């Protein structure tokens, strides 16, 4: 497989999937130039913004380690005067069972069960469709592709009511995991097809031509060339779709049925925050449980995350 990658990259004269490479070169040149555009005032302003942007999250993190009594009666900044530390809140929201408890353990599992397939399905289907649009010539190819691109402007809200009617009336799967998977897959397809098409159409034609001459058909080309070459793009777009699904509330509210059997964390959090007075000691820990996966993904895979973001917005 690496042979193909090498060949393709040789043709492109740069690593595949790194469109922004020329930009990176400029950066290093710019830093060499070392202009002093930044004044002390600007630096100060930047630090003020950074602090303001960080404090809300930081405060909630501190709160989550305080005792319920403390959370109810005074602010998190008192932590610096009278330090305390407990994991009680996390244990409470994760493992306590019962009707009135947060029961986040189950919802956390649900979030995973929803997000993994809902990230994989659309990127696989999108890669297949994108290959067809990029490398199989057929009548109407351009028109259909533009139509798919245009579908991005249709707000989710336009599709909710009829799709729910299809799920509950025709398929009878409303309130199950497959319903949520399918809904997320459909809503993710227009953007993922568009992004994968951008990437796959960049693969040098010679590589694919060579395979065709060797007698490979579309299926073989897809598995032997397209998939291995697309892995970086698949990773970026997959991560993006995963986070989108993980953080979604609307689709979950409409299609998951809202019970601990299927509904994700976001839905439970929205319920808990709806009764703020009663749940305030649970909320900091609960919120952080829902944030932990996105934050891990964000900090460990920031490069892919940013690349996905740049690809998604500078084009679409």
């Amino acid at each position, binding site marked *: 497989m690496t042979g193909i990658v090498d060949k393709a990259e040789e043709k492109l004269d740069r690593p595949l999937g790194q469109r922004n490479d020329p930009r990176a070169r400029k950066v290093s040149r710019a830093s060499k130039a070392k202009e002093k555009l*930044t004044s002390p005032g600007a630096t100060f302003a930047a630090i003020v*913004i950074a602090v303001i942007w960080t404090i809300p999250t930081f405060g909630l993190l501190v709160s989550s380690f305080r005792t319920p009594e403390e959370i109810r009666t005074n602010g998190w900044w008192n932590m610096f005067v009278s330090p305390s530390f407990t994991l009680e809140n996390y244990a409470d929201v994760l493992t306590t069972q019962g009707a009135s408890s947060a029961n986040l353990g189950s919802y956390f599992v649900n979030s995973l069960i929803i997000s993994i397939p809902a990230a994989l399905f659309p990127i696989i289907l999108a890669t297949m469709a994108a290959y067809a649009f990029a490398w199989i010539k057929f009548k109407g190819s351009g028109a259909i592709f533009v139509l798919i691109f245009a579908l991005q402007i249709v707000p989710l809200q336009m*599709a909710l009511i009829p799709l729910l009617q299809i799920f509950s009336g025709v398929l009878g799967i409303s309130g199950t995991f497959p319903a949520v998977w399918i809904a997320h897959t459909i809503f993710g397809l227009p953007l993922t097809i568009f992004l994968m098409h951008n990437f796959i159409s960049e693969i040098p034609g010679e590589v694919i031509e060579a395979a065709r001459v060797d007698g490979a058909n579309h299926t073989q080309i897809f598995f032997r060339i397209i998939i291995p070459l697309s892995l970086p793009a698949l990773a970026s777009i997959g991560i993006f779709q995963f986070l989108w699904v993980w953080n979604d509330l609307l689709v979950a509210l409409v299609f998951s049925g809202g019970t601990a059997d299927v509904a994700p964390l976001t839905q439970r959090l929205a319920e808990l925050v709806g009764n703020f007075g009663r749940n305030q000691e649970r909320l900091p820990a609960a919120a952080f449980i*829902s944030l932990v996966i996105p934050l891990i993904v964000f900090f460990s895979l920031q490069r892919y995350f940013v690349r996905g973001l740049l690809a998604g917005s500078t084009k679409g």
Partner: protein
Amino acid sequence: MRGLAPFWSDLFEKFGLMLLGLAAFAAVIGIILFLADRAPKKGRDVWQLLAFVAPALVLLAVGLIYPAVRTTLLAFYDRTGDEFVGLNNFVWMFTQPDIVQTLINTLIWVALVPTLSTIIGLAYAVFIDKSKGEKVLKSLVFMPMAISFVGAGIIWRFMYEFREVGFAEQIGLLNQIIVWFGGQPQQFLVNSPWNTFFLIVVMVWIQTGFAMVLLSAAIKGVPVEIIEAARLDGANAWQQFRNVTIPGIRGTLVVVVTTISIATLKVFDIVRSMTGGNFDTSVVANEMYTQAFNRNEFGYGSALAVILFLMVLPIVVYNVRVMRKQKEIR
């Protein structure tokens, strides 16, 4: 810690279901591609083409195109979808004070969020450009982008939390700061019309990072030579920024503003989780959900969805036109 056993069995059951789902998906795709691979020589190309595009196209047709058309039709029918009512749902929308307030709120959102996020994001990107620790500073402001709107809602609920004076200590930082300076604590999320602005702050907090990352990349893409030339011509920092950087990143600015505008028009989670749309804070996307799924008013809900679409449409058209123009220039 009691009752963990059901949790584990539940866990295995759900993961089992997920694996089953993944396997079923893989099997379906596998069979489709296998059959296409083995299709009779005659017409094999057509079969293979269908195998690649049909799954996505069928899903989009059934799950997005048909529903969007149907929602548009439903907007002209009554709550059950049986009786044609003409423009009544839209008349209702523009005569009901609550809903008019909702529409006005949405306009306030879409006027403020893109503007503020872009200005702050751009300023921040310029301030930290080429500074020490740029990466860390970027991460700090960008981080809210990775977390959910609901999570952000909770974070800010605590910032805004209000306690009666003399009754208890403040636990919300903002009110505590007001108290420290000798002011009266405020019910940020209850007092209309300012509560809408405090919800908008949350969205700005999230979107600024997005604007900053994109604009930062664009700023670094402005050729150093041009900036150097401007500097040699005696342009000061502001003039360089105004006359060289801004024109150089115009395309990205348009993308940032339009993308945030569209996200703002669709904002739902923040309003839902922070005020539930009460106290005059509702927006179109939230009202659409309330009407359709809490009150079973499918006609009203559909009409609101159509309005949302009509609000998004001009922004997208503008975006596409600017993109086109830029491509021509290149």
